[in-house]
């Protein structure tokens, strides 16, 4: 049966009915039912969550678990944001599978990896909340039906394998169960509901939102204005601004319209801009990450990103087609790889690196079939054929592969010191190769928060009633986010924000 997603206002009669139902259900007296609104609001809740990705769903569900009456609004016609289309890879320090596989890991080790990746810019107090929260968040999503693959993966920049990936290889494997759990538990969820502005009390507390219901992205003037009150808090979980070409290129002029993005079209950053407009502290807004695994032959995140993440980079090599030679550690973190790739410009035009692996390497590449079908993954019967197919010097390329195979056998990459735990000797045709070019992927910067997910103003004080979690916040990831840590951040801080909001002293509206 399709879930009953409420997309319209509840009539006064329904409100009274809802109130009666809550009384019959014996809900905690401290959490009042949605009340008939005074002149100011069309409807009043305890907590309003803006967005519908990992952080938003975690916040809404966690607040609801505390007995709060929760509204979640999403401006797009589907729930999930970027979370629903990401690779579903969750960095967990101390997962059951790591223990079973004999992998020694800990929050302390993950903290070190994240600090190193962030080039020293990370806010360590925020990082600690994330690394301590990954195992509890993992157990929590599993309890709501999320399923992970039966092996631990090793992503660039992590010192040990710690990536748990959904069986679907997409974040939808997490957002769908969490959205269903929200609905089942009574979170009210509206699609096509665009947050227009905060409503604040005279003392500056955020007490509600002006929302445009019936909004049709990206038509600014579509929809009907509605006001919602939030007794305990508003949680902003609106994601990043990778699709806002104007704003991202203000932070980094290299990120102009010539660079595609892996993001969904709604990742335009209005939620962040609204918080900045009421005095939220901007944190590290120019730290914008490019995904090094994307293909210039397809739009957005596409099919190649997953192929490279699970097959090409850990089990293959990436070469400069002008020389046939490797030019970086294929498992370095994203910033290092993207920066190296972006140096490959000749006469103002990109020279797309070629990443490839062999038949053994593609065993777990779920997007291989579609990648071949849509012409973004290319199949070759020999190393020489790859070289000819991409106009590379044949002898140099074949020699490079032989050299790399020697490193694999010796378990020592003398070229770039890449960890070779997952690497394989590249010797079994057919081979599968792709073009590579980075795309704007993640905004490490955002609004400032504290470890309780309270939004900080430019003087460092919490803005009462306002919380934020996930990619819309700044500080945790510093200069470069590690793969698998967006889900970690979104789920961990989403849970914190939901709990903080639900626990806030309510105001009378």
């Amino acid at each position: 049966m399709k879930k009953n997603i409420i997309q319209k206002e509840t009539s006064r009669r329904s409100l009274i009915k809802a109130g009666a139902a809550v009384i019959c259900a014996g809900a905690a007296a401290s959490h009042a039912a949605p009340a008939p609104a005074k002149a100011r609001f069309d409807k009043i809740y305890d907590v309003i969550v803006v967005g519908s990705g990992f952080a938003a769903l975690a916040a809404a569900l966690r607040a609801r678990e505390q007995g709060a009456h929760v509204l979640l609004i999403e401006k797009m016609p589907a729930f999930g944001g970027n979370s629903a289309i990401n690779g579903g890879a969750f960095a967990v320090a101390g997962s059951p599978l790591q223990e079973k596989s004999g992998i020694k890991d800990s929050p302390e080790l993950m903290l070190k990896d994240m600090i190193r990746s962030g080039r020293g810019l990370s806010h360590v107090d925020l990082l600690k909340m994330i690394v301590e929260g990954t195992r509890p968040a993992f157990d929590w999503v599993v309890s709501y039906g999320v399923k992970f693959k039966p092996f631990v993966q090793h992503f660039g920049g992590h010192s040990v394998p710690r990536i748990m990936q959904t069986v679907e290889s997409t974040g939808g494997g997490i957002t769908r169960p969490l959205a269903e759990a929200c609905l089942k538990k009574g979170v009210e969820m509206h699609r096509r509901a665009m947050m227009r502005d905060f409503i604040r009390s005279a003392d500056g507390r955020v007490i509600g939102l002006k929302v445009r219901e019936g909004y049709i992205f990206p038509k600014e003037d579509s929809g009907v204005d509605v006001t919602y009150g939030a007794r305990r808090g508003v949680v902003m979980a609106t994601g990043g601004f990778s699709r806002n070409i104007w704003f991202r290129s203000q932070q980094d002029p290299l990120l102009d319209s010539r660079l595609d993005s892996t993001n969904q079209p709604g990742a335009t950053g209005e939620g962040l801009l609204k918080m900045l407009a009421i005095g939220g502290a901007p944190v590290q807004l120019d730290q914008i990450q490019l995904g090094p695994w994307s293909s210039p032959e397809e739009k957005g995140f596409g099919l190649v990103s997953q192929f490279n993440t699970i097959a090409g980079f850990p089990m293959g090599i990436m070469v400069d087609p002008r020389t046939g030679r490797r030019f970086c550690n294929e498992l370095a973190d994203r910033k290092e790889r993207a920066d190296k790739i972006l140096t490959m410009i000749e006469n103002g035009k990109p020279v797309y690196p070629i990443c490839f692996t062999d038949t053994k390497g593609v065993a777990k590449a779920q997007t291989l079939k579609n990648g071949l079908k849509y012409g973004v993954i290319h199949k070759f019967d020999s190393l020489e054929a790859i070289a000819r197919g991409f106009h590379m010097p044949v002898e140099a390329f074949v020699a490079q592969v032989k050299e790399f195979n020697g490193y694999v056998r010796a378990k020592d990459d003398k070229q770039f010191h890449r960890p070779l735990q997952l690497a394989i000797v590249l010797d079994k045709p057919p081979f599968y190769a792709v073009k590579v070019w980075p795309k704007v992927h993640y905004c490490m910067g955002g609004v400032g928060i504290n470890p309780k997910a309270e939004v900080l103003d430019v003087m460092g004080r919490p803005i009462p009633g306002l919380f934020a979690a996930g990619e819309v916040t700044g500080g945790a990831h510093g200069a470069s986010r590690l793969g698998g840590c967006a889900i970690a951040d979104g789920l961990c801080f989403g849970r914190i924000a939901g709990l903080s909001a639900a626990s806030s002293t309510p105001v009378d509206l």
Partner: protein
Amino acid sequence: MMKKQMLAAMSAAVLGAFALNAWAAPAVPMGAHHAKMKCETCHTKDNAVKGNAFVPPSDKTCEGCHGSYAALAKKTAGGSEPNPHYSAHYGESLSCSACHRQHEKPQSYCNNCHDFRHKMP
């Protein structure tokens, strides 16, 4: 011609029945199938926001005539392209009108990221 005029008159009557405060129905003609129907087939009172019915209808309205999302997913499974009515990203949470727009050309939401070759009515 007669049908168009009647439709225009009907639209005017319906428009007059609602207080338009923030948004007006687009003037673009709708798909051939729904053009034969009354505005309120989709723009029902239940779908109205603060009395304004001319907002995207709830999926329940579409499903009322076309069948449930799950039934449609079954119907369109097994084609040469991925199932447009089910994906691992959205399940059933992608609104019908995300793709099936009635006052504009249809547009595959999947193709914001993919290059599928779905044929859309």
